[in-house]
């Protein structure tokens, strides 16, 4: 086993550094090294989206990125979304619309919705459904999630 890699990066707007094994995924680094456990492991192979984060402005599954790849990049996670005194409008919309049940997929959905609204502030219902199809929710049937994103789009645009 080769030694650990030293990574210098930006996480939620702040400079961060860590040591990780070359084989550790970004999801493992977030959860086991940095204790940012808002990203969840649902499948570990890119099918469920519970570990969604935004890397250099792009929505990715953190289980499909290596921790060592973060060098020099900028990462947004669910932990960085709210201000100290105010939730992000997407978070508020999820609460208002009861768009979560067990909540395990919620951080991933919220990050995916943010990535969508960052580049398309007024999506149609179909665009929302298309964009969020990489995130699985087993509890809600998606109805209230789609409505929450529609609401958030109205608030933010």
């Amino acid at each position, binding site marked *: 086993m080769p030694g650990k890699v030293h990574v210098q990066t930006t996480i939620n707007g702040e400079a961060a550094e860590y040591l990780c094994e070359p084989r550790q995924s970004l999801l493992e680094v977030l959860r086991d090294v940095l204790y940012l*456990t808002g990203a969840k492991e*649902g499948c570990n192979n890119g*099918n469920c989206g519970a570990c969604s984060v935004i890397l250099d402005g792009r929505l990715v599954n953190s289980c499909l990125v290596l921790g060592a790849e973060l060098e020099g990049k900028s990462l947004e996670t669910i932990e960085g979304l709210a201000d100290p005194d105010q939730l992000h409008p997407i978070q508020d919309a999820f609460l208002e619309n009861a768009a979560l049940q067990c*909540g395990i997929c919620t951080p991933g959905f919220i990050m995916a919705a943010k990535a969508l609204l960052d580049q398309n502030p007024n999506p149609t219902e179909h665009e929302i459904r298309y964009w969020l199809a990489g*995130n699985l929710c*087993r509890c809600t*049937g998606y109805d209230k999630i789609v409505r929450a994103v529609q609401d958030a789009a109205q608030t933010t645009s």
Partner: protein
Amino acid sequence: MAEKKDYKVVGTRPIRHDGLDKVTGRALYGADFQTVGLLHGKVLRSPHAHARIKSIDTSRAEAYPGVRAVVTAKDFPAVEDKIADLGEGAANVKDLQDNVLAGEKVLYKGHQVAAVAAIDPHTAEEALELIDVEYEVLPPVIKVLDAMKEDAPLLHEDMRTDEMGEQSEKPSNVASHFQHKQGDPEKGYAEADVVVEQEYTTETVHQGYIEPHNATALYNPDGQLTIWCSTQGAFAVREQVSEILDIPVSKVKVVPMEIGGGFGGKINVYIKPIAAMLSQKTGKPVKVLMSRADVFEGTGPTPGSYVRVKMGATNDGRITGAEAYLAFEAGAYAGSPVGAAAFCVFSPYKIENAQVDGYDVVVNKPKTAAYRAPGATNAAFAAETVIDEICEKIGMDPLEFRILNSAKEGDIRVDGPPVPHVGFVETVEAAKDHPHYSAPLEGENVGRGVASGYWPNFGMKSSVVINVTADGTISLVEGSTDIGGTRASVAMQAAEVLGIPAEAVTPSVADTDSVGYTAVTGGSRTAFATGYAAYEAAQDVKGQMVERAAKLWEVDAEEVQFADGVFSTVNGKEHEIDFKGLAARLDETGGPVVGRGTADPNQPGPSIGLHVVDVEVDPETGKIDILRYTATQDAGKAIHPSYVEGQIQGGAVQGIGWALNEEYIYNEKGEMTNASFLDYRIPTCLDLPMIDAVIVEVPNPGHPFGVRGVGETPIIAPPAAIANAVYRAIGIRMKELPMSPGRVLQAMGKI
């Protein structure tokens, strides 16, 4: 006893109490648990569907750097053959143990065989490859009808059939056969103008919760075991671990973390006893997490089944007789939900001449577990499509047919008990009146179908403690893990009693040492039974607060009344104080007020629903699209309507997945070949329209606010409703689930 009145809190839609933690990523689920000195466990699983274990050599793994312990079935204490009650179903303790770590045989691919604890997960994984297991591979049997054949390979060489109470002489894979009968079906068919008989098959499907199973255990030298985990029932984990490891229940403390979905699948234990055994060997806390493939291959799905239904009716639409033959795959050990299927299959209807036969059959698949109205969906797929065929033959509207044949309160169900007060007709009427049912259908290959679903619901035990805080709020401690918003729906019932806002309640889910016994979050029981316990605890608080007000005003307690959140003297209301004001003065009237409530309510009140769906079938690909979906359901009284709608929508979509895509696909060796979310395809939001959930409220007389559980019913109707819609679209009756594109093309004769 349901009070009919205007509620202040019940029926409103407050923000759920645990919401903020869950939208900020701060809520701690089982896998998020951390502690110092943690070791990581991994489990070796059987690569074979059926094999005898000739030997296990763990010496190379034990010698691997970083490995701290290895366990196999040899490390289990000897246990007696006995049945443990798990809340939603019972199980033989020896079977539970054998399922956790295989003894003499492995009975399905994915069966747990050994486990390693090491300094990190990767080291543990590497060490698994150094465990040498010698197998004698045996022929597997995967399908229920194959397993029932006389010459089928036997899973358990000593298992005899319980044939309606008698033990069979020869060993068999059929664990039991039971029968319910009333009247004479043959006589019923003789009176009928139309008799329809059809056969149906369904494949194994999984609950598909997004969070894999997890457990962290710490065993202390004084014999005290603590387990942090995601579970539907902390007390059910305590009982199972106590039985499997032969530790007194008082020595096992289970701390329920947040849970990422369960649907019945997180009641049985798999890795929790393993984490405990590894901790016992190492003296360190040990965390074990399942992978997604482990979840599919190693945890209980819901059965594949063969169902035959025969039904006769007169030309004017009266059911004269019916029979159901239900053969369910239990998985590797006895105990499928065929019993529940039997009491649901005809329950919405009044049928004087009926017979139901149920068979519980072991096959080389993971031991099945509960899944949302377990058994009912398989049965309803058959019964509700046979009804549709009868309606078509006699030319009657399927909703009118259901109203005509609906069972009324007091009618006797085929399995014996009378039908309680239930809003079946009301849900059918709601569907009939909904604009969806009369909306025109446009285009080719489109069709509309309906079906109903019935679930009896469960009560069971719950405990709640309420502490009054000096600022006029209350803390509410409960034992029910919150999977879908029950902190809110339980808290709201206490708030209603005490005349305070929902936000003035701080609910928390406690560990097994910190709250009274509480059964699983399952059986659609939490808002009903734990809500009932919260109601009782709030009544207790109310009584104590009345005494405090009396003390304050130096009057008798009988002279104090409480209404709309205000305590006052009965005569002339010369004294008045609201809940908040009185809470601030507890110190001068005797100190803290703590209320307690326990419940074991026996009238859960069935919930019933009627679903309407429009589909379009692509004749070239066989793909079925859901165009529009409406689900009505009797909720008794919806405490928090948003989360009741959420249950209906989520359950309907699980049913849609079961109908269209989901199945365990096996090869000839009995290996599941699609153990990932890519290949076991659950619905995504792109596959669906909005789901219109229509709440019908026919109060349950067995609950103070009229609550009926709502969680399970909505999964039952979708496969039959969709099959009926497909028939209207392309004229073909689908009799196999899932109705995947390949099966549709096959049924259309195109492949």
